């Protein structure tokens, strides 16, 4: 179905009892041209771009749970393209441009809100680093503004400007950054991809790969039977190592838990997304009023989808250092999502050494903002068998070649790059 002001009015007049399923709950066919393992944002975006951009519509997306049950439903919803390293700058801006036209492309309200992202700085060195990053962005045609203390005070008068240890000196602002509704993003892609013929198959867990005599992947074994495939693309976030192991691959990836938090709803306070550059704390306010925030990973390998208290304490300390008044706000809920931490903190989008198997992994902290860009370049790789030019540096062999992309010096173990 197509959403419009008229469909909304019609449904309103009939008491909102006439809405239909937004995507078909498909049963698996015997064979597809492309099978995407993983029905998260990246997998669904890949399927949508395969169908809409590259004309490949005989596609299935296999999801072991239900759409939105994984990291797509447990992230902090931030979108931005404020990256400074070659490889990242172009890719995240490609993604940002796709965010800006997503609602029109998908005919779905994903609540993209360009309310601005500001990274605060607290020292001269940090200001210089942000100035350099901002300049890199502007050279590449991306918006960036370096704000001084007065400008930050005007924008966010509630910050603790008298913090002796980490005084706020200014910030790097990207006005086009902001937030989007994470659940709506997966629903929107599912809605639009399904309308073009993509089969979205939920409750379908992949348990192995079907290989021919030459070792080429020709299908997948699943909890709903064997499904043949011309090509198989993996987009399984925290489970990349586990799924790759079924094809005999070891990856430069560790799985770690990253927690996210939401407070009770309060009146509008925080104008956009704000990061505390001295620690690792970032926060925005949802349209319902809750403060949505997060910080570091828990620091040890985990598949448990739940975190531990020390990081919760650390994150709340970061928030309190910046905004002492939020100490009176109650924490409403908390999640732990499982991240692929790649060894340089950057993604991997490439063919694997196994013929017919393609990899989209290693998103670390930042998979959500990449969702449309990731889908676009992964669909390009699957359709054309060569990397998209904006993802050409995200190769699997870059660790062996020494061509790491360590934007922030964070990966599973920062001492390794």
């Amino acid at each position, binding site marked *: 179905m197509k959403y419009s002001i008229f469909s909304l009015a019609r449904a309103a007049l009939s008491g909102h009892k006439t809405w239909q399923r937004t995507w078909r709950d498909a049963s698996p066919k015997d064979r597809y041209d492309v099978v995407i393992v993983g029905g998260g944002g990246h997998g669904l975006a890949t399927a949508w771009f395969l169908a809409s951009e590259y004309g490949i519509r005989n596609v299935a997306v296999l999801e072991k749970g239900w759409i939105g049950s994984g990291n797509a439903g447990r992230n902090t919803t931030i979108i931005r393209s404020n990256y400074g390293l070659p490889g990242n700058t172009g890719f995240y801006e490609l993604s940002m441009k796709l965010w800006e036209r997503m609602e029109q492309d998908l005919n779905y309200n994903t609540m993209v809100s360009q309310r601005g992202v500001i990274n605060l700085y607290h020292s001269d060195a940090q200001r210089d680093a942000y100035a350099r990053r901002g300049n890199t962005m502007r050279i590449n045609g991306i918006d960036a503004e370096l704000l001084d203390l007065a400008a930050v005070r005007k924008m966010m008068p509630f910050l603790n400007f008298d913090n002796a240890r980490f005084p706020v000196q200014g910030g790097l602002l990207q006005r086009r950054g902001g937030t989007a509704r994470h659940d709506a993003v997966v629903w929107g892609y599912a809605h639009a991809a399904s309308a073009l013929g993509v089969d979205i198959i939920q409750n379908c867990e992949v348990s192995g790969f079907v290989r021919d005599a030459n070792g080429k992947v020709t299908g997948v074994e699943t909890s709903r039977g064997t499904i043949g495939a011309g090509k198989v693309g993996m987009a399984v976030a925290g489970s990349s190592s586990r799924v790759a192991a079924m094809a005999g691959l070891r990856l430069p990836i560790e799985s770690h838990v990253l927690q996210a938090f939401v407070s009770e709803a309060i009146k509008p306070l925080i104008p956009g997304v704000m990061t505390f550059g001295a620690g690792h704390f970032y926060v925005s306010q949802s349209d319902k009023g809750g403060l949505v925030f997060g910080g570091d990973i828990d620091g*040890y390998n985990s598949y*448990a989808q739940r975190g*531990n208290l020390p990081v919760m304490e650390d994150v709340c300390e970061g928030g309190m250092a910046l905004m002492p008044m939020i100490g009176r706000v109650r924490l409403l809920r908390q999640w732990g999502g499982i991240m692929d931490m790649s060894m340089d903190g950057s993604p991997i989008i490439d063919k694997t050494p196994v013929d017919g198997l393609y990899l989209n992994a290693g998103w670390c902290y930042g998979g959500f903002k990449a969702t449309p860009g990731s889908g676009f370049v992964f669909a390009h790789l699957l359709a054309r068998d060569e990397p998209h030019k904006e993802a050409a540096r995200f190769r699997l062999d870059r660790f062996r070649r020494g061509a790491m992309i360590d934007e922030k010096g964070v990966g599973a173990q920062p001492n390794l790059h």
Partner: protein
Amino acid sequence: MRIVCPFCGERELGEFTYLGDAKPVRPAAGASQDEVFDYVYLRDNVAGGTSEYWYHGGGCRAWLKITRNTLTHEISSVDPAAGVGAAKAGA
């Protein structure tokens, strides 16, 4: 998650630092590029029972070898890593 240090008793997680998988063995000086690459970058990234090194920096400062389930965070054994480390170094 709390860890029962063999020297200090049960302590909260914040006192400990994780080093990583205890399985990879540092290659010898003359090892090939592939062996070094494998050691530095590739991971088994086990879902389930695995053994790993932790450092009790907020307590006795001992290195520990811990057997833990990465799916449940359940810890089944905690031992001093000294013996293991010496064996690895060929001492």
